[in-house]
């Protein structure tokens, strides 16, 4: 969220990826969602884990979720645990203050795809998001290819 030197490297390619931003701080939530929307992502932002789970349960689909670790009343790690149980294919990026490195380790152990330390620059956000989405796409592709291979092997 610091001033960046140039916006030339910002990818503005049209993306259909849907991202859910979970942060109990209205300002941070608004800024992250606005940065992602500017980059072409479809974004929803909610203040807490309960609202996030409610949205998912009601059928809304997301390709990526970003969540603040220190959210209240449901902290980011608890949300992550539930997401990993119910929606294991959605990558989760954890966001926390620069001094919260120890909680990042816990989040990574619990299955977070990656993390961002605040204050972060716009390019760091885009890079982390793109990497997480790419990882998921490759995973899905790998799964599909394995299934195809298994089918072909079964035919022979």
């Amino acid at each position, binding site marked *: *969220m*610091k*001033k*960046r030197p140039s*916006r030339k490297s910002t990818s503005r390619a049209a993306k259909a990826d849907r991202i859910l931003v979970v942060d109990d*701080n*209205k*300002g*941070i939530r*608004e*800024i*992250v969602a*606005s*940065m992602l929307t*500017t980059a072409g992502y479809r974004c929803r932002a909610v203040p807490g884990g309960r609202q996030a789970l409610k949205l998912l349960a009601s059928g809304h689909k997301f390709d990526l979720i970003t969540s603040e670790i*220190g959210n*209240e009343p449901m902290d980011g790690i608890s949300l992550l645990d539930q997401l990993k149980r119910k929606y294991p294919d959605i990558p989760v990026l954890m966001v926390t*203050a620069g*001094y919260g490195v120890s909680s990042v380790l816990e989040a990574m152990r619990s299955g977070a795809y990656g993390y961002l330390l*605040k*204050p972060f620059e*716009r390019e760091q956000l885009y890079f982390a998001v793109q990497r997480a989405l790419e990882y998921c796409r490759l995973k899905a592709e790998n799964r599909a290819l394995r299934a195809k291979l298994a089918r072909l092997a079964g035919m022979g």
Partner: protein
Amino acid sequence: MDFETSPRRLSSEVFNALCAALGYLESCISGDTPPDKVFEVLLKVQEQAERALEAEMELFRAIGADKYPVVQ
């Protein structure tokens, strides 16, 4: 001490309000904010800066720093 006034919570409030203020400023500087919305966003910067100050003062009280005289 309840959660809302715990030093940890207040410290996080200060940090987040400052991050948000920086983020809003960045959106003005980078040109993401349309010219006719800049004033509106600057008011948000002000709101966040005030929140940071407020939380900092609460934090100061929560840690009891206001109860002791400053020794020169």
